[in-house]
């Protein structure tokens, strides 16, 4: 439970951090909240020779909302903690799905330190934020030796712990397009106890008007070696009346997209089953909320 030796660096700016990363090469890891990386180091499954701690970089913090012409967006600094996500009323108004999901991550102690950037950059299929970001169609900004680029969350994940991020890059910001006003949302997660990763989880975002679903997006957590954005499941809901047939079709599409592995949480058949259960519940709750919120707006 004691990590291998490492050098510790604490840059004060993003430029300094990317410079260090370039200089130290692949033996360096950035350290955010440390709640994924440090356990791995204690088990000596990770043994970086250099740790570049991002906590002093002010420009990586904060939550900002812009309401632009073609629809606004929320921009979240990578070093914003999960606790700060939960505490932000601004965020809760604009993208309530994030608070709902963040409250289901780990426990308060972990959330005081764990960051959104670390959670999405980590590439662990057990992390909840990646699926969420895919559901929300977020984009990640990566800063590296060649400047800044943007990668869609839906394009980011390759396999367990392998992402589109290059070794020299730091994930600096997360940009989330503002969901339509009055949208319905839900994050349903089955876990064994507080502080546990998902056995299966489903994120759903949808709009309802006149009894029909406008747009819908569905993503699932810990049911493959990456988060699963189930485009076909969303498509099965969009334009439907959200009735039993549409929901069955969405669930079938989502189950076709996942590839869970057996572990202590249970065998594959169980995971398939509860993936469907979580998704059904998420669709039902998102629909209910969208319908309620649509009714509120017409009053």
């Amino acid at each position, binding site marked *: 439970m004691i990590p291998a*030796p490492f050098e510790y660096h604490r840059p004060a700016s993003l430029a300094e951090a990317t410079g260090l990363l370039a200089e130290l090469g692949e033996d360096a890891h950035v350290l955010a909240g440390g709640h994924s990386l440090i356990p791995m180091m204690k088990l000596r499954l990770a043994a970086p020779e250099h740790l570049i701690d991002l906590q002093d970089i002010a420009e990586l913090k904060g939550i900002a909302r812009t309401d632009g012409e073609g629809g606004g967006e929320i921009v979240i600094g990578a070093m914003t903690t999960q606790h700060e996500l939960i505490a932000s009323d601004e965020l809760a108004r604009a993208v309530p799905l994030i608070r709902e999901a963040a409250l289901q991550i780990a426990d308060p102690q972990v959330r005081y330190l764990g960051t959104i950037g670390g959670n999405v950059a980590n590439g662990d299929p057990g992390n909840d934020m990646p699926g969420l970001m895919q559901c929300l169609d977020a984009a990640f900004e990566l800063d590296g030796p060649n400047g800044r680029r943007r990668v869609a969350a839906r394009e980011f994940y390759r396999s367990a712990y392998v992402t589109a991020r290059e070794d020299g890059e730091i994930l600096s910001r997360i940009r989330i397009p503002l969901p339509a006003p009055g949208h319905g949302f839900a994050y349903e997660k089955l876990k064994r106890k507080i502080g546990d990763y998902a056995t299966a989880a489903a994120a759903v975002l949808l709009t309802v008007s006149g009894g029909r679903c406008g747009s819908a997006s569905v993503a699932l957590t810990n049911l493959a070696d990456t988060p699963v954005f189930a485009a076909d499941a969303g498509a099965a809901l969009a334009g439907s009346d959200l009735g039993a047939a549409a929901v069955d079709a969405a669930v079938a599409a989502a189950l076709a997209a996942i590839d869970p592995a057996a572990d202590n949480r*249970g065998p594959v058949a169980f995971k398939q089953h509860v993936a469907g259960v979580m998704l059904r519940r998420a669709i039902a709750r998102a629909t209910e909320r969208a319908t309620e919120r649509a009714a509120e707006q017409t009053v």
Partner: protein
Amino acid sequence: MNDQTPTATERAEKLQGLGCARKRVEDARFTQGKGNYVDDIKMPGMLFGDFVRSPYAHARVISVDKEAALALPGVVAVLTAADLEPLNLHWMPTLAGDKQMVLAVGKVLFQGQEVAFVVAEDRYIAADAVELVEVEYEELPVVVDPFKALDPDAPVLREDIADQKEGAHGPRRHPNHIFTWEQGDEAATNAVLAGADVVAEAMIQYHRCHPCPLETCGCVASMDKINGKLTVWGTFQAPHAVRTIASLISGIAEHNIRIVSPDIGGGFGNKVGVYPGYICSIVASIVTGVPVKWVEDRIENLTATAFARDYWMQGKIAATRDGKITALWCHTTADHGGFDACADPTKFPAGFMNICTGSYDIPVAWLSVDGVYTNKAPGGVAYRCSFRVTEASYFIERMIDILAIKLDMDPVELRLKNFIRADQFPYHSALGWEYDSGDYHTAMEKVLKAVDYDGLRREQAERLAAFKRGETRKLMGIGVSHFTEIVGAGPVKNCDILGLGMFDSCAIRIHPTGSVTARLGTISQGQGHATTFAQILASEIGIPADSITVEEGDTDTAPYGLGTYGSRSTPVAGAAAAMAGRKIRAKAQMIAAWMLEVHDDDLEWDVDRFAVKGAPERFKTMTEIAFAAYNQAVPGLEPGLEAVSYYDPPNMTYPFGAYVSVLDIDVDTGEVEIRRFYALDDCGTRINPMIIEGQVHGGLTEAVAIVLGQEIAYDEDGNVTTGTLMDFFLPTAVEAPHYETDHTTTPSPHHPIGAKGVGESPNVGGVSCLSNAVNDAFRAFGHVHAQMPHDHWRIWKIAEGLGLHG
């Protein structure tokens, strides 16, 4: 002139003696983070030890190359079995009459087994050096299934004793067989089974668990080469026994060994045994001449120190058609891992498993237990239960429910019909015990009334109908259990550990100003002994509990005792405290008589004083008597006021309880919500109701953990798959349900204050109660029994098997 106020009642209240919900005196330091645990001990020049452990469950150790590790600056030594062999310390005796490798001798038998011990200047260097020790292994076929271990062609695990036909507990019939233990009347039991109206049969598995105390095991060993004295501070539930064992195996004279248990962060049986870390630290300190600390981490604790349970209990229970039980039969296969390191009294290789007739009047019974070696960690400790009592209780309480299904009867009705009646005590069980006292019907009926059992069954029927109509996906389960524990080991005539009789002790010293230091042979690990033993004494000697300091755990000062586990502290050491208190009182009476110039017999005890019979205004308080003991020359009496008692209990005590739980099961996810948990405990005389309640809450929470998911699981290669708290289920406040507690009081007739012990009852009763509830939820669909743990996917599997997923 002495006046008569305050009244006797007021004076008694001031003592905070028996029955008082006195606040725990320990908590002032614990709640402020001021406890002193073994890892808090820091000594000048202290070195740190760390283990190289086997990644394999079964392998030959071809070579151990220390060179790279020794070359790392700050590394002082790397010990292997070859270094221990000249001292004859490469093997150590276990508490069960077997022996265990201290460091791998030619082979390893479980994943996590200790192979080499690195000693370095700090724990970081030690951890780095562990990585540098190169061990070459040759993998051997692995045995994780205790039944397959006895196959004729199974790999031989313990080559060191392969040809030994006789073990510590009788004949061995296979190289992987440890013992067979038989109790009861086999022929008579089989005869009843053959002719019975109804026989219910089942295989009841109690899975491998782990006590998982929050503080892991560890020690600091310090050999003082000047005075030749070895001091070891450590997480020891039985410090005196550790001293004797350390002396026997090291050859150091016992008076030159001091064992100290500082504050202990939970034991639950995990800290009873002797671990290689202790031996290696002692050797390392002797070799280096400086103190050596070893503290294991969580993974080491879960994978290499003593597990609990792992019993496969095949059962048959016979009854008449109207539900009178006529016989019980049980064959247990006990998975002991690579070494038999069970912590049981010597004559009981399967502990008190023969309490498995439980709370029922069963005329004839038969029990046999086969102990088996597998490629798993050794242990088999009493995890918050007396020796194997939770296994026994789980077995009988499941068998009763299974029989109830077969008889188409309500499980409560079946229990009430077969309980031992209050007028049958002392009761002689078919498997050889003499139950001291009990009133099971009263306890059960009190609980049924409190929870409105009939109402619960009606609600369950309504819920079931709603489920069948498709209105809900939740099923309601009601669990009932009635346990009888057997604690307070134990009478020296049949209870010993490595030849040490299981008495316990208390030494009391009354100081001149009337305050008291009392020392006992036990050691608290969270039970609150400093609070409760002071209360026993307060009532016995009339001095306020606040003026009594209780000390335990230092073998240089405490009287010899066998320590704390198996709910033995109150039944044995608590009794010693009362008896020592009575000796104090006897001498105090003589002093008071001399002071009051009357005959001893003219005095009577009155709460906190001796008063002249018929003249209550003439008295001497204990404070006055204490002072007199030090400043008066009382003819015929030695000065001072001290007493020691070594208490050998005449019998065990038999606490019992009736529990009911109500839970809702989501058949789609396997989630369980415990809606209600009602626990009535009868632990005899109640010393401190608040502490009892705390103990019950703790024990029930551990029961919740065990039933709903806590497991040490192995894959087929013998890898532990639940080695961290991510996968080993330790419930938090969020998972712990609300508990309702209740009690009846049936004192033990043979204990000086009638107390029976309570710390472990809730775990014993809680496990069967909750497992019964889970199984009960599915009874309406023809379900009979599913093995624990009842975690999400396994419950889902029950529902799947019953076709409840459409």
